[in-house]
């Protein structure tokens, strides 16, 4: 059971160890010839017994019996039945060799000067062996019983001839014939047992293999299911994160940015009214001239006022600077222009680029917001690279659909040599693109031109 199937010798119909003990491989591979040879041997063995008044009958019976051996492997039951019938005819008609030493197969019993079975009767034993080896126990036991009954009938038939002899001879004949039949059956049955065991083992082996295969297939199906599930989950995560960024930008726009703008407006009002008040005071001061007495107090008030004006101006300036910073931050989180589609967003990028940009966008159906954002940020990064490193005088951005995938290419006529360096800008783009199973390809020979293409699914 534990041996792998490949090491198990395949069960062969003609591979019965013990049947013909010293057969070379040729005999194993040619069962018909081997059995014909066996038949000839049986005929030869019995030829010496063809004597006396039944000589012709003996020869005929021997040849017929021997012939039943030839088809034994293919038709074990029929061959046995024919041989048994011939044996029965032999017993009934009393066709038996007269006197002389008779060799019995099997236990090697020697009967001297008494009639008995011919050597060709050994064919019956061979067929019983074959029956036991090749057919079910039920069939082979029936065969054994027939043999034993036949032996008994023969002994009874011949017993009167042996009347002069003691009962011992009859007993020895019974033991010899019965024992020979039993031995043939046991030998055959043991072969069948081994064969069945090997057969069951191979069946169990096959069952185990099928089970293992089924398990493996189940594991593969589970893994595929899991992969699909993870893919869906990732797509959801990518979409959710894009939606969340958009929400954050909107919250900033509706919240902090607008409040800060309102605050800056109030500070502007304060600053302007302080300025106006100071101008008014200066005018009044100039008009009243060197009135003397109140000059110290007026100077102190003017100092205080100047300080307040300075603070208001600083606060006003700071609020305006913060507005700019906050706008840049919000735009980095989610460029609002993306809400109007990739075409508008890429156009906005192109017009703020330091290097003149030609733009071609042909995307009929809008990809998901997450994909649009990736395309936009990649284009922004690539155009920034063009301006910073390439020395190009022109760049082209083209975006289109090919087989349900979005392809965006940034080309420049600069000095080339762009490459993927760990931690570099392009590596960052590659990471971003790979979050949705996208691809990034770089073609940038020294001397240019540089062509960088990203390819993405139309949704995460």
């Amino acid at each position: 059971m534990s041996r792998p199937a490949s090491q198990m010798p395949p069960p062969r119909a003609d591979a019965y160890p013990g049947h013909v003990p010293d057969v070379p491989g040729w005999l194993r591979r040619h069962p018909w010839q081997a059995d014909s040879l066996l038949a000839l041997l049986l005929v030869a063995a019995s030829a010496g017994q063809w004597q006396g008044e039944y000589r012709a009958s003996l020869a005929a019976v021997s040849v017929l019996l021997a012939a039943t051996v030839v088809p034994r492997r293919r038709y074990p039951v029929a061959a046995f039945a024919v041989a048994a019938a011939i044996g029965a005819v032999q017993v009934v008609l009393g066709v038996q060799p007269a006197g002389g030493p008779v060799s019995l197969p099997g236990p090697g019993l020697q009967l001297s000067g008494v009639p008995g079975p011919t050597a060709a009767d050994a064919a019956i034993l061979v067929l019983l062996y074959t029956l036991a080896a090749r057919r079910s126990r039920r069939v082979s036991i029936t065969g054994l019983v027939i043999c034993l009954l036949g032996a008994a009938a023969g002994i009874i038939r011949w017993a009167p001839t042996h009347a002069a002899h003691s009962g011992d001879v009859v007993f020895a004949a019974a033991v010899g014939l019965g024992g020979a039949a039993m031995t043939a059956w046991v030998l055959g049955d043991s072969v069948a047992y081994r064969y069945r065991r090997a057969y069951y083992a191979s069946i169990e082996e096959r069952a185990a293999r099928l089970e293992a295969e089924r398990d493996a297939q189940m594991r593969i199906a589970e893994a595929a299911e899991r992969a699909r599930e993870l893919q869906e989950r990732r797509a959801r995560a990518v979409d959710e994160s894009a939606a969340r960024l958009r929400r954050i930008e909107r919250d900033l726009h509706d919240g902090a940015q607008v409040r800060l703008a309102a605050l800056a407006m109030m500070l502007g009002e304060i600053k302007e009214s302080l300025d106006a008040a100071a101008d008014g005071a200066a005018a009044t001061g100039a008009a009243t001239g060197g009135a003397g007495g109140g000059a110290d107090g007026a100077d102190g008030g003017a100092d205080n006022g100047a300080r307040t004006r300075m603070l208001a101006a600083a606060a006003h300036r700071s609020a305006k600077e913060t507005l700019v910073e906050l706008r840049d931050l919000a735009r980095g989180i989610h460029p609002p222009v993306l809400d109007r589609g990739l075409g508008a967003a890429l156009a906005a990028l192109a017009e703020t680029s330091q290097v003149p940009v030609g733009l071609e966008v042909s995307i009929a159906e809008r990809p998901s917001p997450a994909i649009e954002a990736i395309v936009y940020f990649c284009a922004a990064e690539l155009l920034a690279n063009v301006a910073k490193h390439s020395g190009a005088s022109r760049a082209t951005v083209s975006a289109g659909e090919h087989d349900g995938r979005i392809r965006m290419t940034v080309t420049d006529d600069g000095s080339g040599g762009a490459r993927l360096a760990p931690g570099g800008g392009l590596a960052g783009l590659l990471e971003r693109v790979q979050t949705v199973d996208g691809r990034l390809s770089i073609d940038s020979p020294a001397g240019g031109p540089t062509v960088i293409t990203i390819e993405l699914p139309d949704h995460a």
Partner: protein
Amino acid sequence: MAAPLRIVIAEDAAVMRDGLTQTLTRRGHEVLAAVADAASLREAVEKHLPDVAIIDVRMPPTHTDEGLRAAQSIHAAHPGVGVLVFSQYIETQSAAELFAGAPAGVGYLLKDRVADVSDFIEAISRVAQGGTVLDPEVIRHLLRASRRGDSLATLTPREREVLSLLAQGRSNTAIAESLTISPRVVEKHVASIFAKLGLAPSDNDNRRVIAALKYLEP
């Protein structure tokens, strides 16, 4: 102080809507309506026919560009009503769309500009009087892009500054004041700019802005 203006405000953020209303009222202008979405804006404009409508670009329901669309349709239907669109972000494309037709009485400003209250109110007045206001940010984008190549590259830094102010619809005197140079020098710069850009000079402020805009349009 110029004559009081009749104003409608469309801005979905209450803090900005109220702040603008108070500031404008304090400066003697009349805020006829302050609404929070494009539909109410159209109604208010139909009802009051104000001198100028101040319109936020992003408003409910889509929070994208309904303000811009409303401004365009109002300006088409009522050329006498000035529209000042203001936005948290400035896009050249939106500016080009807004100014594509007759740019008289049209303004486009970054929301930050409310911080400089007097300048902002001056811009409102200019739009109300049929003038044109374009945010310096748009000009800066376009100048930085140098998309017109040689002709723009030939401008001196000072001329760029003057062009940027000029595109906002400022008069020569106003430009002279903000750059602290004499009006005569400004005139020379303007003549030089127009010569370099191949545009005929004109003494009408509005026409000058239109010329600049046409030049800057993509």
